């Protein structure tokens, strides 16, 4: 008899085989992280029911099984290895196995060179991810699969990690996209993630085997894989049990199972994990803490049938809807707080109707909306004002603490912090897409462990040794928790550890504070997550300061909105709201359709809400064209101008043939240079097409490092496109050094920009048989450049090019480059002058040359111009300052421009800088802090927008609006 035990991150599986390797018994159960107890129980059960005390060959496998196996002396088999053993035995003709588990994703190539691939430290695209998404959609995994079967279309969702995808899915929900379509899109995202992250350039073909929970349970997921790979894979019998089967087959040591179970008792006793001090030293300490926080409350008065004019604030958040009614004295008459169930409108309608019905003769003076769904709600019900959520929260916090200098709001999905100086928001931190240690995370975790979130959080209050879970991305915490459980941490200590890590995330990831003094001493904390006393306590302990948590912590946005309405009414003398009447609300109806905009090449996916009275609300648009019917006005947008300039470089037929240049990374700046160079030499220079989602997806399978920045990953698609254009050669040189503009201590390119052609050459199979020129050249030394090109580079590929020709080509190239840069600076000046004439704000949207790519910047430039500001680039103004000392080594050309642009901004009243940062850009870990310091030194606000392949502009929009609101406030103060 053979027994195999597979302990995964969420489930435990066990098989018993007889002498002929026939399956006698199997079980598949969730362990809710009670790994040890569950394993013991299972071992004893099998001993009693199947083996009756006889010895059996046993081995243990699975990601959570290693420590366990070690402690009881049972051989451990690595799970991928185990899978392979089982596949070889049961389905020997398999070429490739795709196995998705709770937190792992694996691909095994079995033929033509065995290779195994596992997901990296990123848990995206796995069962945990699917579960997380199902929770978000308020469905079980099964229901989500059923829904997805009904889908008619799919959206683009990043599945890199659950947090990313959430920020894609949430707006879709908020905009009213159909659940069926979202569900299908989630599965598609998993497929993309698996292929992009794990195939790494190796084609998946032949007989494909699907294993593991998600692929067994979801028909749509299997179908999505089939479609993406162009194959028909099979999901074999016992597809959940392959790891356990492999472990059983591998087993070569005999044990009495109940003895093993007994040996595990000792394992339980040896709990060692890094821990933190308990949250409360004593019950009394807790009582005092509790009493202190209960005292911060807003006066509430009865909402009688007859009362004076009221102001309504509605905060349509990412996961909840909040509504507050106040009277003219700012007292609360009524509050409501509920989950938005994917669509906020019916809930709000119901609430408003309820208020109308219960208070006949009620006079509503104003209705103000805020939050993610601000626009939709405002439009749907004809509300009076829309308010960016940051300002709403600030308004409410001031009620509790007029001289508040720091506000932190941790909601279900997002985290907002802002510093207040001189009565205005001086700095805003929103959680980056990678680190939302927020309420919904705690909730998902509580559910995964089989608890209700409130119950779960309360468990942690009196934990004796809270687990130290660190402060990185919450998705990684799954593995940390796993490890802690392995080390014997109790649920209480894990709960407390999670609460503490939420706080640490906020402080060290989002705000990057190093001391409480830095943040301020007058702190208001809000957001639903702070109802959790463990989080609240952890925050106070970590900060070393007592904070105010209002009793309406979860309603602050709505309360602030209501107060704003109240203030506006006083200012404008408004007495009656324009909101729908009771009758109109009764007849309110909402139809949602999703269409692809044909207005331009962006083909935005529009969500069109049509209301009963025929009004439409369109979202998902990157420009105003689908709304107003007019083309975008780009006269004050230097990004658009740069795109035009680059698009004007067309191939000119020449005597020597054709050459292709990928329009990616540094080519966004050097295209003029190389275009002139090769054209002069007699080559027709073709560029790859403008980036698009399709282009990216076409190349994504060849990306070897999934944590590289998006601009680099995009280049694979460009290379693929070029190889299909039948060109004589493709040219993309390696450039250690960039041109020295005299602004820094050195003039390097970053390692990725410098050497990415090496990666392309090594990983893009389509380059095989193509002439790919990726030599190392130094354009920073014009004389040597000519010499090296003539002597070392060109002769390798083309014969008969004379030194004179190369010299002339180089002259043309340098001249064209200079002219191009000059054009940008001239246009920049024009835009600045024109903006000043029109009295507009000027935003320096500072990035690197490739941030001009609309697929990379996601149209943020247009978003800014739609807010009425002009957009210029960092390179259009960087020449306006002399080299100045920085506190970091200023050694990259692109970043020298950034520092210079920041410096210049501090000398201009109407100019502010917004920095674009690509996720995964290691260099920006250094530049962002330096840029922030330069700007703050000069009394300017610093705004950073971190971007990736995600196209959700919602968070970006909030940031920009908060920035503009803060700037307006500053200007008002100055008057």
């Amino acid at each position, binding site marked *: 008899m053979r027994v195999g035990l597979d302990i995964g991150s969420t489930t435990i599986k066990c098989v018993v085989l007889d002498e002929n390797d026939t399956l006698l018994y199997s079980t598949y159960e969730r362990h809710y992280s009670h790994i040890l107890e569950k394993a013991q129980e299972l071992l004893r059960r099998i001993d009693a029911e199947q083996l009756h005390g006889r010895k059996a060959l046993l081995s243990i496998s699975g990601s959570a099984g*290693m420590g366990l196996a070690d402690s009881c002396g049972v051989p451990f088999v690595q799970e991928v290895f185990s899978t392979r053993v089982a596949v070889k035995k049961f389905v020997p003709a398999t070429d490739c196995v795709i196995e998705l588990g709770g937190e792992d994703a694996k691909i095994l190539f079995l033929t033509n060179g065995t290779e195994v691939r596992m997901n990296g430290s990123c848990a995206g695209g796995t069962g945990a991810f699917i579960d997380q998404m199902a929770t978000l959609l308020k469905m079980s995994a099964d229901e989500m699969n059923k829904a997805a079967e009904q889908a008619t279309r799919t959206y683009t969702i990043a599945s890199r990690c659950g947090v990313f995808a959430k920020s894609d899915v949430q707006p879709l929900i908020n905009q009213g996209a159909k659940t069926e379509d979202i569900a299908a899109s989630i599965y598609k995202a998993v497929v993309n993630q698996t292929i992009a992250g794990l195939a790494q350039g190796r084609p998946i073909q032949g007989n494909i085997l699907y294993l593991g929970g998600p692929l067994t349970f979801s028909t749509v997921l299997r179908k999505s894989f089939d479609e993406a790979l162009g194959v028909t894979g099979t999901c074999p019998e016992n597809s959940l049990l392959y790891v356990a089967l492999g472990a059983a087959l591998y087993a070569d040591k005999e044990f009495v199972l109940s003895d093993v179970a007994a040996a595990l008792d000792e394992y339980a006793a040896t709990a060692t994990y890094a821990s933190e001090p308990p949250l409360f030293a004593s019950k009394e300490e807790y009582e005092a803490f509790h009493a202190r926080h209960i005292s911060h409350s807003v006066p509430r008065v009865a909402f009688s049938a007859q009362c004076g004019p009221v102001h309504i604030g509605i905060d349509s958040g990412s996961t909840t809807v909040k509504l507050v009614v106040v009277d003219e004295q700012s007292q609360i008459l009524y509050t409501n707080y509920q989950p938005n169930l994917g669509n906020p409108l019916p809930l709000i309608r119901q609430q408003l109707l309820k208020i109308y019905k219960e208070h006949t003769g009620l006079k509503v003076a104003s209705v103000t909306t805020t939050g993610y769904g601000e626009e939709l709600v405002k439009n749907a019900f004809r509300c009076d004002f829309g308010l960016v959520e940051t300002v709403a929260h600030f308004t409410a916090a001031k009620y509790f603490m007029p001289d508040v200098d720091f506000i932190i709001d941790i909601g279900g999905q997002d985290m907002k912090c802002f510093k207040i100086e001189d009565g205005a928001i001086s700095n805003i931190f929103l959680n980056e897409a990678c680190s939302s240690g927020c309420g919904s995370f705690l909730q998902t975790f509580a559910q995964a462990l089989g608890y209700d979130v409130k119950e779960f959080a309360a468990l942690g209050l009196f934990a004796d040794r809270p687990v130290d879970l660190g402060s990185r991305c919450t998705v990684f915490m799954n593995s940390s928790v796993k490890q802690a459980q392995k080390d014997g941490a109790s649920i209480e200590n894990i709960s407390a550890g999670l609460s503490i890590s939420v706080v640490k995330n906020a402080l060290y990831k989002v705000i990057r504070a190093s001391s409480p003094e830095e943040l301020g001493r007058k702190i208001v904390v809000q957001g639903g997550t702070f109802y959790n006393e463990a989080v609240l306590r952890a925050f106070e302990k970590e900060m070393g300061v007592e904070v105010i948590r209002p009793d309406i912590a979860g309603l602050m946005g709505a309360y602030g909105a209501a107060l704003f309405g109240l203030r506006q009414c006083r200012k404008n003398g408004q007495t009656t709201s324009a909101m729908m009447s009771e009758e109109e609300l009764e007849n309110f109806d909402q139809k949602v359709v999703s269409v692809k905009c044909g207005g331009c090449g962006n083909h935005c996916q529009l969500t069109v809400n049509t209301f009963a009275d025929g009004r439409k609300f369109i979202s998902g648009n990157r420009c105003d064209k689908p709304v107003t019917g007019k083309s975008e006005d780009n006269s004050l947008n230097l990004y658009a101008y740069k795109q035009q300039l680059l698009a004007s470089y067309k191939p000119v037929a020449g005597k020597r043939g054709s050459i292709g240049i990928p329009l990616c990374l540094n080519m966004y700046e050097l295209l003029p240079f190389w275009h002139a160079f090769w054209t002069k030499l007699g080559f027709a220079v073709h560029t790859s097409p403008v980036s698009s989602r399709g282009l990216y997806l076409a190349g994504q399978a060849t990306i070897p490092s999934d944590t590289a920045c998006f601009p680099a990953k995009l280049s694979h698609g460009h290379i693929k496109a070029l190889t299909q254009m039948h060109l004589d050669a493709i040219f993309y040189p390696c450039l250690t050094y960039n041109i020295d503009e005299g602004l820094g201590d050195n003039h390097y390119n970053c390692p990725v920009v410098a050497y990415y052609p090496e990666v392309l050459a090594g*990983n893009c199979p389509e380059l095989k048989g193509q002439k790919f020129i990726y030599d190392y050249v130094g354009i920073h030394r014009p004389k040597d450049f000519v010499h090296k090109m003539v002597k070392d580079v060109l002769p390798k590929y083309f014969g008969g090019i004379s030194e004179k020709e190369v010299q002339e080509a180089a002259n043309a190239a340098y001249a064209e480059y200079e002219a191009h840069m000059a054009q940008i600076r001239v246009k920049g000046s024009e835009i600045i002058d024109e903006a000043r004439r029109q009295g507009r704000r000027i935003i320096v949207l500072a990035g690197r040359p490739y941030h001009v790519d609309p697929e990379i910047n996601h149209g943020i430039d247009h978003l800014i111009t739609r807010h009425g500001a002009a957009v210029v680039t960092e390179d259009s103004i960087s020449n306006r300052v002399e080299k100045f000392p920085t506190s970091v080594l200023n050694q990259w050309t692109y970043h020298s421009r950034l520092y210079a642009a920041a410096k210049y901004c501090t000398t201009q009243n109407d100019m502010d800088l917004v920095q674009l940062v690509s996720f995964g850009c290691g260099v920006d870990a250094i530049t962002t802090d330096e840029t922030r310091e330069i700007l703050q030194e000069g009394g300017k606000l610093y705004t950073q927008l971190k971007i990736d392949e995600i196209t959700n502009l919602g968070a970006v929009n909030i940031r920009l609006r908060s920035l503009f609101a803060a700037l307006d406030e500053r200007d008002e103060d100055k008057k």
Partner: protein
Amino acid sequence: MEYNYPKFTPEMKKTHTILIPNMAITQFRLLEYALRYDGYKCEILGNCGSAVAQLGLKYVHNDTCYPALLVIGQFLDALNSGKYDLEHTALLITQTGGGCRASNYIHLLRKALVKAGYPNIPVASLNFSGLEKDSGFQMTLPLARRAIASVFYGDMLCALRNQVAPYENEKGAADKMVDLWVERLGRVLLAGKGFTSREMKHTFPLIAKDFKSIPVTRVPKVKVGVVGEIYVKYSPLGNNDLQKFLESQDCEVNFPGLMGFVQYCIFNMGEDHVLYGGKLAMKMGTDQLLNWLDSVERSMLKAEADAGFYAPGPFKELVEKPEGIISLGAKMGEGWLLTAEMIELVQGGYGNIVCAQPFGCLPNHIVGKGMVNKIRAMYPSANITPIDYDPSATKVNQENRIKLMLAVAKERLNAPAEAKPLTAEEIAGGAPSLSHV
């Protein structure tokens, strides 16, 4: 924005204790003697534990590379410990001066010191690129020669120790031998001796002979090579004690030497001339230096080989390895060296490779992960696993991945036909599990 950071003045040489982060343990132990001979008071930090990473996270941008977080965290933890007289303590950090963000560690450290309340602690830069010219800590020729000797000796001790320890009859014998030689060489270095090429060439065979004398029982073991970002590759703090873990899994481990990195840095200065032009004098100077190092290196390798140990090719051969895979122009971070070391290891029978890198390390996107496919295409037997290290990557995850690599390695070890790449059939057939089914 600029801080007026405190400088390490020449007078401080006498008054201050210099703290040095730990990286390659044996090499750094010897380096300490070299610095002491030169008149510096110094201490190599040994503090580790979770406070180190936590302090790093607290005072350095969290997206900065893991080595920076750890090194800075280790310094701050040491300063917080109360063990040091803060009026008379200075810090030393390396600075490569390349296009990688590692050149900025020193500035991040200074920023962190200000934030953590130690604005007066001076920081000195250890570099060969002429950065921080106004510092009182200078890499003078005599110091450089002794430092080079320390690295050579340290590399050799590690290489031999790693080839003996897994097979030794008496556990700990090889480690004892390392300690013995470190002490002996330390005394020699403090006496102002032992650093000339003649002395080194005389000493190498003595070291080899001593290690050869340790009784061993040689049985086939899985041989694992480790390459990676320099800090994470060597530092147990950075790689969760990778060497210990691999040895606990019954492997022989090979860490290519630190001198390779030193030579690589020197070589790159000359290669710039080849690729982009510039002063020929630089190229000639570096060539000369490399020639000198080469003669010492060859005698070290010969001493190893003569005593029956595996010795890799000298640096001059290493330079040839990446031909057809990556250009020698890739010089940021570990650059082409990392790729070359992987090839050297594969050719030398250490085809099971852990490529250790900090999460999100930029050069490693290119020279590590980016080159694995190409190496595999040329050497199908290469069994490479890239492992990411960062403050929250769990040990379980990392060890799990390494174990997977080892599982494949063990199959191959048991399969007789080692010379040519195995087919999938052979691998599965060779699995111990199926042999008795």
